[in-house]
C-alpha cells in the first residue's frame, strides 16, 4: 500500500472522532469523507485543506509542487496573520510544464527546494503534493528526504494531493505531516507548568491575538499555536506542553489525539467564539493545567478574569439590544460556530431561525439543541436554492456565512455578514463578540438594503408611465 493510502486509512480511523466510532466496520473502511457527487458544487480539495492548515506557520517556505493553478489560486487568500516572519506569504511553486509531466518533475522540485534554501534560508521548507505531480508518480517524500540530508534542513513532505478527498481531510493530512516530521524534533529553552498548545486555530484576521492577552492575564504561556502565527520551532517543540486546547472541532483532531497518545498531553475541545464558550475554554485550560501539576491559584485568577471580562462584554453589547431586538438570523457556517455565537446573538436580542450543521459533529449538534431548545432549526445541507428561498421569504433578516454564500443572500436582497475566513474583523474572544454584534448592527442598518429591497420607481403601481 502506498504511503498515501496508509495515511488515509489512518486518518479515517481516527479514534477520537465520535462520528467515526459510531460507524460500523464496513462504513469506517469507506472513509470518513462524504463522497462528492459529480456535477454538484463542492468545496475545496485535500491539497487546499493541507495548505490552509499549515500555511499559517509563518517562517517557513511553503512550496507547492504542481502546475501553476494550485498555488496561483490559493496564494495568500486566508488572512492568516503573522506577528513576525512574512515568508509564508511568498508564493513558491514549481510551476511544472508539459515536459515535466512527460519526464517527471522530481529534479525540478529538488532544484526548487535548493533555490529556496539558498535565497531565503527558512528554518524549514514544506513541500505540497498536488494532483498532477502525484499522478505522474513524483515521490515527494523521497525528494524531501534527499534534500533534507543534502541541505541539512527540515524539508517536510505534505502528501495531500487534491484528489485524495475534501478539504477537511486535507486539514488532517496536513496535521499528519506535522506529526511525522515536525512535532518533537526540537526542545524549548525552558518549560513552565503553564505551557499550553492551541490546536486548530489559524489566527485569521488576528483572532489569536484577541485571545492571547487573556492567556497572558491568566499567567498561561502559549507554547505553540498550531498553526496560527506559529514559528517552525514552536511547532517542533510543542510536545513539551502540559495541555492542549483544540479549537476547530474537526480539522486537526488527529494532532490533538496523537499528541495525547505520544506525549501524554491531555486536550479538550473548546471555542473562542461566544462569551460563555470563551469563558468555558479559559476555565478548562486552568483546570487541565492544575491537573498536570500547576499551582491551584490559577483557577481563582481565571475566574476573576472571566467575571470582569464577561461583565465588560455584556455591558458593551447591551446598547445594541434595542436596535437588534427580534431580528432573525440565519447562520450558515460550520463546526463550532454553528452554536458558539448563538448565545451572544440571543443576548443581543436576536432570534436564530436556523443554523447549518453540515460540518458539525454530533457534539456540536447536541450543543445546538441545548442552547436553542425546541426551536432549533438545524439545517444539514442547505443548497443555495433553499437558502435563497428562506431568505427571500423573509424568514430571516440577516445571514451570517462564509463568502461563498454571500451572493445568494445579496441576490435575495438580504443583509449578509461574513463570518468565515475572508472576513476582515476578528470575532474571537470577548472583544470579538462585541465586534460581531457591532458589525451585525452596521450591516442591518446599512442604507443599501432599503435600496436593494425597494422596487425601481417605474415598477411601482403609481408610476406615472410605463
Amino acid at each position, binding site marked *: 500500500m502506498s504511503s498515501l493510502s496508509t495515511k488515509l486509512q489512518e486518518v479515517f480511523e481516527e479514534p477520537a472522532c465520535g462520528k467515526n466510532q459510531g460507524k460500523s466496520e464496513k462504513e469506517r473502511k469507506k472513509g470518513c469523507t462524504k463522497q462528492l457527487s459529480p456535477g454538484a458544487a463542492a468545496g475545496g480539495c485535500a491539497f487546499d485543506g493541507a495548505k490552509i492548515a499549515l500555511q499559517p506557520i509563518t517562517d517557513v517556505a511553503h512550496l507547492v509542487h504542481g502546475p501553476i493553478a494550485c498555488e496561483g489560486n490559493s496564494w495568500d487568500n486566508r488572512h492568516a496573520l503573522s506577528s513576525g516572519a512574512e515568508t509564508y506569504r511568498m508564493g513558491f511553486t514549481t510551476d511544472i510544464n508539459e515536459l515535466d509531466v512527460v519526464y517527471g518533475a522530481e529534479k525540478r522540485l529538488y532544484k526548487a527546494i535548493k533555490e529556496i534554501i539558498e535565497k531565503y534560508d527558512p528554518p524549514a521548507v514544506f513541500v505540497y503534493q498536488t494532483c498532477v505531480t502525484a499522478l505522474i508518480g513524483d515521490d515527494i517524500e523521497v525528494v524531501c528526504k534527499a534534500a533534507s540530508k543534502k541541505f541539512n534542513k527540515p524539508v517536510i513532505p505534505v502528501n495531500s494531493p487534491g484528489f485524495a478527498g475534501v478539504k477537511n481531510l486535507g486539514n488532517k493530512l496536513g496535521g499528519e505531516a506535522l506529526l511525522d516530521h515536525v512535532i518533537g524534533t526540537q526542545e524549548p529553552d525552558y518549560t513552565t507548568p503553564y505551557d499550553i498548545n492551541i490546536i486548530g486555530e489559524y489566527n485569521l484576521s*488576528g483572532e489569536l491575538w484577541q485571545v492571547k492577552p487573556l492567556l497572558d492575564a491568566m499567567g498561561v504561556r502559549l507554547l505553540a499555536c498550531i498553526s496560527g502565527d506559529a514559528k517552525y520551532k514552536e511547532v517542533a517543540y510543542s510536545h513539551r506542553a502540559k495541555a492542549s486546547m483544540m479549537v476547530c472541532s474537526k480539522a486537526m483532531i488527529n494532532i490533538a489525539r496523537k499528541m495525547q497518545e505520544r506525549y501524554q498531553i491531555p486536550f479538550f475541545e473548546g471555542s473562542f467564539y461566544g462569551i460563555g464558550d470563551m469563558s468555558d475554554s479559559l476555565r478548562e485550560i486552568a483546570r487541565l493545567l492544575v491537573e498536570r501539576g500547576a499551582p491551584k491559584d490559577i483557577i481563582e485568577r481565571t475566574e476573576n478574569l472571566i467575571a470582569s471580562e464577561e461583565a465588560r462584554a455584556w455591558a458593551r453589547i447591551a446598547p445594541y439590544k434595542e436596535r437588534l431586538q427580534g431580528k432573525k438570523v440565519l447562520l450558515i457556517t460550520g463546526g463550532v460556530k454553528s452554536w458558539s455565537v448563538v448565545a451572544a446573538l440571543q443576548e443581543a436580542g436576536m432570534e436564530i431561525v436556523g443554523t447549518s450543521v453540515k460540518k458539525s459533529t454530533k457534539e456540536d449538534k447536541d450543543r445546538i439543541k441545548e442552547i436553542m431548545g425546541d426551536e432549533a432549526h438545524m439545517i444539514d445541507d442547505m443548497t443555495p436554492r433553499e437558502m435563497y428561498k428562506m431568505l427571500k421569504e423573509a424568514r430571516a433578516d440577516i445571514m451570517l456565512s462564509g463568502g461563498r454564500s454571500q451572493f445568494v443572500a445579496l441576490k435575495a436582497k438580504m443583509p449578509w455578514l461574513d463570518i468565515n475566513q475572508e472576513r476582515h474583523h476578528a470575532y474571537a474572544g470577548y472583544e470579538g463578540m462585541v465586534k460581531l454584534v457591532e458589525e451585525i448592527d452596521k450591516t442591518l442598518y446599512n442604507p443599501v438594503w432599503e435600496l436593494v429591497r425597494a422596487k425601481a420607481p417605474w415598477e411601482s403601481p403609481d408610476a406615472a408611465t410605463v
Partner: protein
Amino acid sequence: MTQSATHVLDHFDLFRQPEYKEMLENKRKNFENPVAAEELERVREWTKTGEYREQNFARSALTVNPAKACQPLGAVFAAVGFESTLPFVHGSQGCVAYYRSHFSRHFKEPCSCVSSSMTEDAAVFGGLNNMIDGLANAHSLYKPKMISVSTTCMAEVIGDDLNAFIKTAKEKGSVPADFDVPFAHTPAFVGSHITGYDNVMKGIFEHFWDGKANTAPKLERVPNEKINFIGGFDGYTVGNLREIKRIFNLMQVGYTILGDNSDVWDTPTDGTFRMYDGGTTLEDAANAVHAKATISMQQYCTEKTLAFIGTHGQEVLALNHPVGVAATDKFLMEVSRITGKGIPEELAKERGRVVDAIADSSAHIHGKKFALYGDPDLCLGLAGFLLELGAEPTHVLATNGNKEWIERVQALFDSSPFGKNCHVYAGKDLWHMRSLLFTEPVDFLIGNTYGKFLERDTGTPLIRIGFPIFDRHHHHRYPVWGYQGAMNVLVWILDKIFDEIDKNTIVPGKTDFSFDIIR
C-alpha cells in the same frame, strides 16, 4: 559636481543631492531670516486648532485657495458645445490663455478660443476697434460657423456694449450681416464659471429664438415631441453626454443636447486636426424652441437659461447633478413622464447591477466620513450618493454656493440618518476646508486636483472628483451620470478606500500584518 553632462539629473533627483541640500540650507539660514524651527512648528500646530479655525472663519476680505473659477471660463465651455463655434472673448488676451490652458490640462485636448486682445489704449478709448478687427480676423482665419462673444473684466469695467459693438462690426463688414454672433456679458467679478456658462447659453438661445438681435423674425414655437437636454458646466462632459445619449437612445426619446462638448474635447488622433468637432448644430439650437421640455442636469448652471426657456412655453426641469441610484431613478422617471416612454429592460438591469455592486461593497463605505467640495450641483449630487451609500458627507463646501443652496443641502442632510452630523458651507474656500479637516477630521476628501494640497497638509486621502483634474488623466471620459456613472463613482471611492488600507499595512515587519490579497 552634482550635475554632469554625461548623466543629467532631472528635477526629481537634482535637488536632493548633497550640494543642493547644503546650498538651500545656507540660503535659508543666511538670507531668509528664518524663524526658529520650534516657532515654525508652534505656528503650524496652532493653525490646526479650533482657535485658529475661529479666526479663519472670521476672515472677511481675503479668499485663500478658492474652489471656483471665473465667468468667462464657463462662457468658453458653453460656446464650444455648438457646431463649429469659436468662442471670442472680448477683453485681454491673457485671460483667454488661462481658459485655454485650463481646459487643455483637464481634457488633454486643444481648446480653440480667441480674444480681442485689448490693450491699454483700448482700455482708455473703448474696445470697439478690437471688436471690429477681432471679429474680422477670427472669421477669416478660423472659418467658424458661429462666433460666441463673451467678455473679460477689462471690457466690463470700461462698460463696452457688446450688442452695439457687434452691430457696428457687422456694418463695417467684419463678418457677414447674417453671420451668427450671439453674445453675453460675463464679468469675472460676478458669480463664477457656472454663471458664465448660464449667461452664454441664455445668450445663444436668445440670439436664435428672439430674432438674432433684431435682424431676423422671432421664432414661432411649434411644439414637437422632442426634449432638450443641458448638461451644465461639467468636467465629465465627454463621458456624461455620451452616456446620456445612450440612455435616450435606449428609451427611444427624441432629444437635442444643447451644448454638446463630448466630441470637441475628445478628438481622435488620426492625422486630422479638428479645430471644431461635433457640437449642437445651429439648426438644432434654433429648433430647440419647439421642444416639449428642457431638462437641465445642473440647476445652478442654468438658472437664467431655464427661466428664459420657460418663457417660451416649454416645461423646464432642473436637477442637481444626479449621481447614484435614487438620483438617476428620478432623472429617468422625469424623462419617462415628460416623453411617455417606458424604462427599457436594459436600464432596469443596469440599475440592478449597480445596486448589486453597492451591496457587495457596502461594508467598506458604511459610516465613513467624507469632506466634499466643488460646484453647488456636483456637491448636491455627490452628497446624495454618499448618503445613499451609508457614508457621511460631513463637510460640504462650495465657494460658489449661495443661501438657497445651503438650504437644499441641509434638506438633503435632514432626509437621511447619515446626514445628522453633516454641515454645509457656502462662500468658503479651501483654506476654510483646511481648518475643518484639522478640527473635525474625516476619512476621505472629495474634490478636484487642488485638493492635493489639503491631502498633503491634513493627511486626508483625496478622491479626485470634480473640475479641474489636472494630475490624473482621462477620468473625464467616464460618465458619472446614469447607473453606469454611479458605478464609476462607486469604484473611484472604493479604489481609494482600498489604496488607503494597503498603504496603512504596507511596511514590512511593522504594519503589514494585514497587507492582504483579498479585500
